């Protein structure tokens, strides 16, 4: 296995989740603990072995949120005695009774072991719901052994919304679901447009109060912006009958306009006019041209931690005359059309997987200056010039693309302390100093 392949040699079915995995020092991506702490008044309980607990407890410690998480350690005696249901039940009772404040939601994370021991955890939650009717108990999962069909991050984004029940739908209220970061009206076309049309937007990332979160029951449409949020959108559509509209992180202008039009139609508000769309296209093209000028041929590398659609973004950049050196992806999840177009556009584009075992010994140096879009791009090219963000944070649509261009320009012009920044766990959380 080489550390990279040229895209012309990469099969569309490419998935790096095979073979031994390497863990790079890039820690900006959020994990289940970061996401769980978004719930106001929520408390997380992790039930698993010592080795699994270590990562989650230190995540909360680094965030300064120790009071938001407790643990129940599964030890040998619990496995041998077969009392793992009782352990979850009585352990949770003990934690609730010990907390200084009654939580509104308790997220109980069971682990791989519970599946293999056939633990009837749903029965436990039933008993707990009866015992504590004022608390919403949510079944959550830290079970990476199930990742092929049920990965943990999409799961948690869905599960934290499970307490929502069907309610009367308000045509003037929508929810943004499954995001890690709030959308900014200056960098998100949809948020700006909805606000201008008087639509109330509820977003877990901005909530301070549990009751406000429950108001999401009354939203008439749920919007998602990231592929990992789709489970949440779909689940709410099925359970609550709320319309789900995935807003594609697209770099195809027609698709952005199409999604915006669909959103407006669902809400019965006017879509952006043809003139407005033309203006947005022009502004975005200008931003691309400006960025290209600033970079002056400096190559770029894109990774899947920074954007949801790294291949499409790379194609867009290449089509706009940028130099793209490499993309870093763990699997190809984008449309085959995009993949084939990229193969045709730049057959010698390098494709890396940060999971591959050879990435441990890869020569991280790069001859000349390169700008990384994302932490992994930066680390594997050992460049201090990089866009430090994850999940296309707060960006959507034309204004989102323009924001990305401004971030790239900023990255190209200023060195960052890459070693320190990329090792902070959970970009955008209060990580350790």
């Amino acid at each position: 296995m080489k550390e990279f392949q040229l895209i012309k040699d990469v099969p569309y079915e490419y998935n790096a989740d095979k073979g031994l995995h390497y863990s790079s020092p890039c820690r900006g991506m959020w994990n289940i603990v970061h996401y769980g702490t978004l719930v106001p008044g929520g408390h997380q309980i992790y039930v698993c072995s010592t080795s699994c607990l270590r990562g989650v407890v230190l995540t909360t410690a680094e965030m300064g949120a120790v009071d938001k998480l407790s643990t129940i350690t599964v030890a040998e005696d619990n496995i041998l005695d077969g009392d793992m249901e009782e352990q979850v039940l009585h352990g949770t009772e003990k934690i609730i009774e010990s907390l200084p404040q009654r939580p509104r939601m308790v997220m109980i994370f069971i682990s791989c072991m519970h599946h293999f021991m056939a633990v009837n955890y749903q029965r436990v939650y039933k008993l707990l719901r009866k015992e504590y009717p004022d608390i919403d108990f949510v079944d959550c999962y830290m079970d990476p052994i199930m990742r092929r069909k049920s990965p943990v991050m999409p799961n948690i984004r869905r599960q934290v919304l499970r307490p929502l029940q069907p309610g009367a739908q308000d045509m003037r209220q929508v929810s943004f679901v499954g995001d890690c970061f709030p959308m900014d009206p200056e960098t998100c076309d949809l948020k700006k447009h909805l606000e201008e049309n008087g639509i109330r937007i509820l977003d877990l990332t901005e909530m301070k109060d549990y009751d406000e979160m429950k108001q999401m029951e009354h939203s008439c449409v749920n919007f998602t912006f990231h592929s990992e949020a789709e489970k949440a959108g779909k689940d709410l559509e099925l359970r609550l009958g709320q319309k789900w509209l995935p807003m594609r992180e697209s770099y195809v202008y027609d698709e952005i306009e199409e999604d915006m039009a669909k959103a407006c139609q669902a809400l019965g508000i006017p879509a952006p006019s043809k003139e407005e769309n033309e203006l947005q296209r022009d502004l975005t093209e200008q931003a691309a041209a400006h960025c290209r000028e600033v970079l002056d041929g400096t190559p770029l590398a894109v990774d899947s931690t920074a954007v949801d659609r790294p291949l499409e973004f790379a194609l867009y950049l290449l089509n706009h005359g940028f130099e793209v050196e490499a993309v870093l992806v763990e699997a190809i999840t984008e449309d085959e059309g995009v993949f084939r177009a990229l193969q045709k556009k730049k057959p010698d584009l390098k494709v890396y997987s940060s999971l591959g075992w050879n990435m441990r010994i890869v020569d991280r140096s790069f001859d000349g200056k390169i700008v990384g879009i994302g932490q992994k791009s930066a680390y594997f090219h050992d460049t201090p010039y990089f866009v430090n963000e994850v999940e296309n944070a707060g960006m959507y649509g034309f204004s989102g693309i323009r924001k990305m261009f401004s971030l790239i320009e900023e990255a190209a012009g200023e060195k960052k302390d890459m070693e320190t920044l990329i090792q902070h766990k959970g970009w955008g959380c209060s990580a350790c100093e």
Partner: protein
Amino acid sequence: MSELHVNVFAMTYTADVSGVCSTMYELGGMTVLHDPSGCNSTYTTHDEPRWYNTKSLMYISGLDEMTAIMGDDSVLVRDVKKAAEDLSPRFITLCGSAIPHLIAFDYKGTAHLIEKATGIPVIPVATDGLKLYTSGIGLALREWMKRFADFSLPHEKDTVNLLGVTPIDFSRMEIVEEMKKALEERGFTVNCCAAMGDSFEKLQEICKASVNLVVSSAGMQPAKMLSAKAGIPFVVGTPIGAAFTDQVAQCLREAQADGKSRYAYDASRFQEKEEGEVLVVGEKCASCSLAQAVDGALGREAAFVLSPDVRDGLDEDALVEKMKKADIVIGDPLLRYGIRDPHTKFIALPHEGYSGRIYRKQIPVFTGDAFDVVTFLEGGRPGGSA
């Protein structure tokens, strides 16, 4: 029913798997953690200060549901073989977490199959992710020595090995160097430091020592093995402060002379005591050594100790109760959450095995002669920190 093992606020000590990885880090091998996901990033993020700057081959197998259910070990054999062909490690270590334990994964048998397939020595270390790092370090050192140490070497007088040394307990080389210096100043030659700062070849000569010093409870298993297999007695105690280091050195001389292993501190005195002036919370060997040093400095029996159990970790209820019965608590800063009495004085002694990287820069040089216990108790800098 068995224990609930609930921690409302307390952290978790790092696990056996991290102990194995930490031990093998500098020895030129490749370590494979048989686990679905998570253990590797936990170790490399929180427990391994060398990860960014020192390349070492640490990987996770990425065990998935179907492979575990089918018990298909050939997937692991194939994957390790592929990686080994690219990386040519000197040896391979195979350890694992809870799921391999539950499905009764055969470490020894699979290690044999990998060795046959690759021609590279494979060391099976049957961890289960349920125990503390001390267990993992101990098992890893023991298994490595079984395979690679030269047991035919004659013992050299006044030569000592330090056992149980990894960054999980000792964070930086500077802290280890202070221990070595303190022993050398008392007439000993430090042969090996297992396993931090020494090479594969150096560790192969571990049996040259006439006595072993267990400086963390992680060193107990290899010490017992070396005692039984090579006739090297051991002393248990971490050289902390000049006075206690003198006691350790005296014990080393006695052990070397009579061939009998011994403790440099009275563990039962510290652990059975329910209340006192100074409570030391942490890994047993270092905490008891510090307690002994505290008693020595104060000239009275003031200290008592609470340590995590290798299987059950730190008992949070016991922690809160013992903290209530102490005037001063010494421990990792994250233990502060357990203090209920605002008058209790807390002295921070960060421990990588507990709070990971959070307070790494504040870990003082707590070993050797430079560590002044009285200054430390007064809340000052006992011997400097990085």
